[in-house]
């Protein structure tokens, strides 16, 4: 698989604060790639740089082999990069259908075609019955779906999902995961920032871990989650060693008392 998106040595500073520090990552075409890390690691900042909402202080962003570092956000959208916002940004005064149609107008000039496309995408993400409702009246789960629908309506090749599962309850998350998988099956590559680990583990092919602005690990989710550096980044210095010691003690105690119930 070739890289659809390639982030090369991107650094983003806000005054004296280095939010992203020389981060590089590749997103393979057709994949669901995860970007995880503790709070404040710089995930959303890296997203805004990839989507073109903030200029990078240093480094390059390539999309389909072209350098897009200097392009403004709306041109990147035209080229096929769509994003959602972590803090949902509905057009509150418009109906759900009109919201999605704004995205659909990117590829359709005629109103009728844009509205039809909006209907189709609305049904795809499970907003079918709510299309005529005002976007301001949607629940949190509904707004997350609307973010997804609007981005999807621009017919992107790369979809950047910023915590679309955050704030949802477990059953809403279960409903949402097949939607994301179906989007990938339809040929859209996905880069996802997510805190819900259960989702990251089952959705992603590859995971990049960002901590204090740096990429500290990358690989399949199973491998990354056992990486000592990743455990320390989440749980603090020494956590990996303590957990390993605990595992050994548990194994020993099981060995000493065969048949004892697991703790």
């Amino acid at each position, binding site marked *: 698989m070739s890289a659809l998106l390639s982030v090369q040595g991107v650094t983003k500073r806000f005054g004296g604060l280095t939010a992203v520090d020389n981060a590089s990552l590749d997103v393979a075409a057709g994949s669901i790639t995860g970007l995880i890390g503790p709070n404040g690691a710089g995930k959303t900042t890296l997203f805004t740089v990839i*989507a073109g*909402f903030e200029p990078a202080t240093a480094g390059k962003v390539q999309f389909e082999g072209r350098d897009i570092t200097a392009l*403004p*956000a*709306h041109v990147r*959208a*035209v080229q096929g990069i*769509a*994003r959602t*916002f972590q803090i949902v*940004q*509905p*057009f*509150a*005064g*418009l109906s759900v259908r*009109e919201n999605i*149609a*704004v*995205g659909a*107008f*990117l590829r*359709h*000039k005629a*109103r009728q075609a*844009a509205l039809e496309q909006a209907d189709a995408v609305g049904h795809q993400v499970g907003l079918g019955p709510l299309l005529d409702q005002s976007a301001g009246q949607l629940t949190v789960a509904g707004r997350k779906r609307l973010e997804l629908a*609007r*981005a999807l*309506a*621009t017919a992107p090749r790369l979809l950047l999902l910023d915590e679309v599962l955050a704030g949802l309850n477990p059953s809403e998350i279960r409903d949402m995961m097949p939607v994301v998988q179906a989007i990938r099956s339809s040929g859209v590559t996905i880069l996802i920032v997510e805190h819900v680990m259960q989702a990251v583990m089952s959705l992603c092919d590859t995971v990049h871990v960002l901590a204090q602005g740096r990429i500290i690990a990358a690989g399949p989710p199973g491998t990354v989650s056992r990486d000592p550096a990743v455990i320390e980044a989440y749980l603090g210095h020494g956590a990996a060693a303590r957990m390993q010691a605990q595992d050994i003690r548990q194994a020993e105690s099981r060995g000493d008392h065969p048949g004892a119930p697991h703790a």
Partner: protein
Amino acid sequence: MSRQPYLPIALVVAGLALLPLGLTSNTVLNFLAFAMIITLAAQGWNILGGYGGQFSFGHAVFFGTGAYAMALLQVRFGINPWLALPLAMALGAGVGFAIGYLSFRARLRGSYFALVTLAFAEVFRISANAWGFTGGAAGVLVPLRIGAEHMQFADKRLAYWLALAFVAATLALTLALSRSRFGAHLVAVRENEEAARALGVDALAVKLKAITLSGAITASAGCLYTQKFLYLDANLAYGPWISVEALLAPIIGGLGTVFGPLVGAVVLLGLGEVTKTTFANLTGGAIPGVDLVVFGVLLILCVAYAPRGVLGLAEGWLGRLKGTRP
């Protein structure tokens, strides 16, 4: 959605066109023509402010530019008014683009944009008042030459119908715009500029187009004003009164709606006239500015109880009559 989206416009315009056949008093005809001119200025404002969410406090700058261009092209250059009118509108569009380019590129929004437009209008007003070319404080007088070829009408109904034709064209244009890709982008920028950019909307270009169109339409109102009154000075053309009426009418009628400016202008000017006459009859003399008190009260009532304007209220009542929630 109705199969015939333009039918309501056709009906309303036909109704308005028939009014002078029943009402022949000069006072009523003058009122109607003036109301159409204010409607036109407000329609221009509504494109930028109502649909685009960019509140201008200085639409006098476009109205005045249209009015002065119309007068000066005739008086100083001897150009026929029918030719001067499109030129004046183009000038209004140009001024709109220039102000938009300067303020939107500097990312001015909300109250900052409003203040900058107010400042532009004042600069134009003071300049027109001081400059000899524009007639200075004495103003410009367009010579009286009655005749359709000079866009001066002995029959007041013709002046009214001309203004109504402009209003009708702008109603149709506004409806077409609200159903187009550009309209969707404009409303998206109003609701949330960041989200719009993420969906591929070039926010700067959209706002520039809107202010350019807005400038041209409001300038056309200035042109008709010149032809109706044949006299201008800086306070009439660039004064804050027209900025205020251009924004009050859509707010009271219904922001970002096709008919809002028309409804608002008629309500606003109608109540203003009624108040002036009533107070004059009660006290035996005119009280200057009493209609402005009414405008202020109307604005407060609208903001407090009818944020979607008279049209929003009417829609709510109709919805309740039908037993469905709007």
